[in-house]
């Protein structure tokens, strides 16, 4: 189960979703409500999609567990936090580095989600706290 909690202008919305696609749709609803520019909506959607997908795929091995997504809209910044209770895993240092230079034939695809997140967001941090992995990504809303 995925949960999205969003704080926009002091108003907190929480929704739960069975599927990541629903979560992405929910992000788009927030984007419209909060008046985000198209490129900001794109970035936030991509981070939720990529990091959320990684957490859903890997956090619990073959088991099940919750992945929570928090989106906080502040005056000038936007914060996304993705939280799971799986084994300790810091994707910023432990995920395999992407291959960005090999030719078509040899290029593996993987590690792009974390790489895109680091590149598109201004500040990305990981912490392990109270048995949970918390990945936080912050970007300016002003572009």
């Amino acid at each position, binding site marked *: 189960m995925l949960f999205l909690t969003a704080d926009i202008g002091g108003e907190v919305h929480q929704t739960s979703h069975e*599927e*990541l*696609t629903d979560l*992405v749709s929910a992000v788009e609803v927030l984007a419209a409500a909060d008046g985000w520019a*198209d*490129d900001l909506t*794109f*970035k936030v*959607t*991509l981070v939720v*999609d*990529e990091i959320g*997908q990684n957490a859903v795929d890997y956090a619990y091995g073959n088991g099940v567990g919750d992945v929570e997504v928090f989106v906080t809209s502040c005056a000038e910044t936007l914060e996304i936090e993705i939280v799971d209770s799986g084994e300790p895993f810091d994707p910023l240092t432990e995920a395999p580095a*992407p291959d*960005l*230079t090999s*030719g*078509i*034939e040899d*290029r593996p*695809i993987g590690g*792009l*989600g974390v*790489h*895109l997140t680091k*590149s*598109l967001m201004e500040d990305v941090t990981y912490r392990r706290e109270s048995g949970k992995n918390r990945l936080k990504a912050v970007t300016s809303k002003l572009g």
Partner: protein
Amino acid sequence: MPIDTERDNGTVVARPSGRIDSSNSREFQSELEAALTDSDTALVLSFENVDYISSAGMRVVLLTARGLQRRRAKIALCSMNESIRAVFKISGFDKIVPIHESTAEAVTALGA
């Protein structure tokens, strides 16, 4: 996900539309495979109607480019919005597949 296709003298121009992510990337791959025949020598993949792509969709672009290269066919991408263009650049895909501003430019480049 329906993909609009046009064929001119062995060059296929394919225009997927909407969002390409993990929820529909398999469908994107099969539609793209269905759009191409073995006698096609070049593919222009136009993003003019695509709003969003994630790494799952980019994987399909890479696999398609690989398949075409193996049979000595060519591929070019074009007409991306700024966000999609940025994602391709950050991923280093712009170094392995040419990206053009417009369909006409891509068709001309492949024909040369």
